[in-house]
């Protein structure tokens, strides 16, 4: 259910979808293995016709709404999720027409792709390669120039002392970040932007700032002599700077098959580009993985990884000394079995993090399922207390923190979150055999 709600383009649509998820609103509802369809009586004389292609899922509705998916599609989806037995299985003509169109489009796309694969004559190949090389070189030059400027900026900051950071205006950080965006180094730009919040973050901010600033320095020094580094470290440096690799260019040897437990999901960015981070855990390889998905306004995020379930799948990892980011390459099977995993104590987590840091000094967060921890609060501050009485800081909003406390009731539970070396951002929890997204 929550998964369907997560498809909603905004909160208003989610609410409207929920109130449309009642049988009375719908006529001629039906579904087969491929699709769901129904007609929704709106205020007009003619009902809206809604189809959902479950294979993606993809949506089609005859209503005039520009939101996607619209409230009718969401409502129908929720309705079927609640009452899977509803309706008949004969596809009405209007739904079949759209599904047929999708099939032929998909076919055309495959053919086009095949065609593109088939006839790359040598001249085309050479032209493409040289274009690509030129683009890379251009960008390379921009990045080098941007990093040069960043170095001067960092040196200047250190000459005047970090204490001066508190008196700097927002523009001071923002201009440097913007400059790095122009220089096509978005990863570095984000790291600079993150610095701007530190001076107002309370105790220990200056140590934090020094750590982050020096890590940036390490990054730009590493980039200066990147050709002397190992291939995997090169990949980490480039990824920290913001070079991205296309999914279809990921090396084949980085494919790992396993039964992946979907630990939790976190979506950031409400209005503009939404980013969904899905954390997975390989049950046989004991490996964590992070799948990032992006949705522009009007687009929806796929439904394929459902927290609390296990997917048998092949993941293709991005090259790294400490590979975490991956794409879902091939799904073999989804089963709903619920398996609880996690580090028995915080020490296990800390050792893993230290190992990761040794391999990739720019590592930002690792997946941290922690078993037998008890959430506790001291005033406004929240912690997870492990079985060795170690207190790990939680950086969660109060609502999630109280939810954790409610789930625990003072008993140990498993909390899953992102560990950044200092604190844990809780994302989900297992309590009493249930997996709950926070």
């Amino acid at each position, binding site marked *: *259910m929550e998964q369907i709600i997560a498809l909603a383009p905004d909160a208003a649509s989610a*609410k409207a979808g*929920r*109130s449309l998820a*009642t*049988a*009375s*609103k719908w006529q001629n509802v039906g579904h087969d293995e491929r699709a769901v369809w129904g007609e929704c*009586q709106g*205020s007009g*004389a003619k009902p809206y016709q809604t189809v959902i292609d479950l294979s993606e899922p993809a949506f089609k509705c005859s209503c005039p709404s520009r939101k996607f998916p619209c409230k009718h599609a969401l409502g129908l989806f929720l309705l079927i999720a*609640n009452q899977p037995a509803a309706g008949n299985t004969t596809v009405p003509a209007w739904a079949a027409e759209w599904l047929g169109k999708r099939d032929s489009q998909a076919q055309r796309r495959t053919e086009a792709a095949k065609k593109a694969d088939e006839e790359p004559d040598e001249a085309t190949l050479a032209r493409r390669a040289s274009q690509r090389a030129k683009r890379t070189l251009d960008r390379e030059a921009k990045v080098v120039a941007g990093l040069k400027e960043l170095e001067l900026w*960092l*040196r200047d900051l*250190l*000459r*005047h*002392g*970090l*204490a001066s950071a508190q008196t700097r205006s927002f523009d001071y950080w923002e201009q440097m970040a913007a400059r790095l965006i122009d220089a096509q180094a978005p990863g570095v730009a984000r790291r600079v932007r993150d610095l701007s919040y530190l001076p107002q973050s309370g105790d220990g901010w*200056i*140590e934090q700032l*020094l*750590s982050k*600033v*020096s*890590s940036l*320095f*390490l990054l730009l*020094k590493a980039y200066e002599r990147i050709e002397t580094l190992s291939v995997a470290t090169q990949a980490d440096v480039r990824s920290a700077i913001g070079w991205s690799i296309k999914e279809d260019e990921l090396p084949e040897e980085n494919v790992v098959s396993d039964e992946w437990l979907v630990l939790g999901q976190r979506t950031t960015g409400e209005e503009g580009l939404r980013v969904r981070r899905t954390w997975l855990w390989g049950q046989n390889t004991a490996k964590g993985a992070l799948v990032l998905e992006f949705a522009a306004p009007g687009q929806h995020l796929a439904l394929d990884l459902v927290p609390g379930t296990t997917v048998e799948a092949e993941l293709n990892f991005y090259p790294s000394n400490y590979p975490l980011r991956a794409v879902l390459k091939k799904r073999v099977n989804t089963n709903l079995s619920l398996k609880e995993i996690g580090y028995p104590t*915080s020490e296990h987590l*800390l050792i893993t*993090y*230290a190992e990761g*840091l*040794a391999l990739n*000094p720019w590592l930002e967060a690792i997946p941290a399922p922690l078993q037998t921890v008890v959430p*506790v*609060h001291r005033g406004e501050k929240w*912690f997870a*207390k492990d079985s*060795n*009485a*170690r*207190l790990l800081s939680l950086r969660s909003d109060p*609502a999630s923190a*109280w*939810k954790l*406390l*409610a*789930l625990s*009731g*003072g*008993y140990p539970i498993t909390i899953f979150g992102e560990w950044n*070396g*200092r604190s844990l951002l809780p994302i989900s929890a297992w*309590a*009493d055999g*249930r997996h709950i997204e*926070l």
Partner: protein
Amino acid sequence: MQLWDDILATAVVGTDQRELQLAAREDELGRLLTQIDNSDREGSLLSAASVVALYRSAGAAPPVDSHQLPEASAQDEADRASAESGQHLALMLDGEFREVLPEWLAAMNRARRRVPEEHLPALLDHGRSELSLRRAIIDVSGQRGEWLAVQNPDWYYAIRRDDKDVWETGNREERLLVLEKLRITDPTKAREFLVTTWPQESAKDRVVFLEKFAAGVNSGDEPFLNEALHDRSVEVRRAARPLLASLPNSEFSRRLKQLANQILSFKKPLIGKARIEVTLPEDPIAWLKANDIEIDSPPRNATQSVGPKAWALKEMISLVPVTYWNELWKKTPLEIIRAGDESEWRESFALGFLAAARRDPDPGWIEALVFFTATDPKQPPLIELVAYLPAARLEALSLDALKSESAELHSALPLLLAHRNPWSDQLSRAVVKRIKKRISESKDNVADWQTKTSLKQFARYVSPALYDELASGWPTQSESWSSWSKGVDAFQSPLAFRRDMHRAINEKEQNS
């Protein structure tokens, strides 16, 4: 760590102010740091910082907590409601179908279910502003809810406390809730509570507490109420009078009836209509006072002049339980109302009977007042009085009103709107059938407006088990459908939600 402190000290004030001096170390870290080029002041600082920061980060250990964990929550015996029920709750707390929440809470309590833990914080938050739901919220929150409440001052209300403790230490609203609850479950105890603290209460509080006494008022209250009747505060005295008036055998009530008996008589002349004859003393307020009956003075404003006699009569009548007149004169309520209307003091009778009937609603009198005002064009109609009728009576009257095919649907609306209780299947069907018929007649008129807007309220009281039947077969082809569809929608959605929520609460959990 000395090394880090040195680096930090330079970084804070800047390399212009202070040169970086690194203490030598005989370990890997120390050897690594010797490779840094010291001639580059900022570069060496940043390089050293990056190495040492990573070293520290990799070795950081969270502190060991010496505090004992707070005692864990007691185990709950009630079954946890399903995930679907949790979603229903979240939807209502989010504002959708919120008016159904009391019904959901009651159904959860009947089924002995408790709220899934992850929804407790939002529900407990909701109870902060919804005082009337607190009791039910506490019941569905179980041990876990109370355990949470102990830890969050915003939720203190959800801690199960001894009534006596709340009464003695709680704030005003909490004390009112206790008094209100006890007046229903154990009125004597409620009185005992109030008596122990009575002298310390402020006049304002004495009034609001007394007002809660109307529920469960009984002869045991009389000595206490008599004391309140002679309170130093005029507001308290005023609040005590109707309570004593509701006790038919109280000394106050008997005195009042005796006086009324002296000045009123029911006369049926040989020719003409029956009427109540009144012989008032010259100064009725003083006369009452001499007999230890205090009433308020007539309001003094220019636009509405009420003579002291008319006023005193009205006040007296409003303090006598209406059924007394039936006993006294052996007449029906309608005969007495009509006889009062024939009197020269008809205004006093109309207002007095109405006030008395509102205070101690006798169904016979309520119906007579409704009937009398509805059939006499001179009277302002008092149809809203039907809300004082018991549920069973409203049910019967509603069915009766719908029985005759010729009667206009909207004439039954006041009854249906007042019937804020679960409707029987029979009534649910009859109402929906009449509305469907009305729509299919395609004779839309202005009077239907009220029916359309009432549909949303009806959805809360019709039987949700009949959903399939009630939600289908609407005359969508009718010409007037477009003006009805919104109202019907507002009827069907909450009804579907109620059906789903009851099913989710009552079906056995599938997984887990």
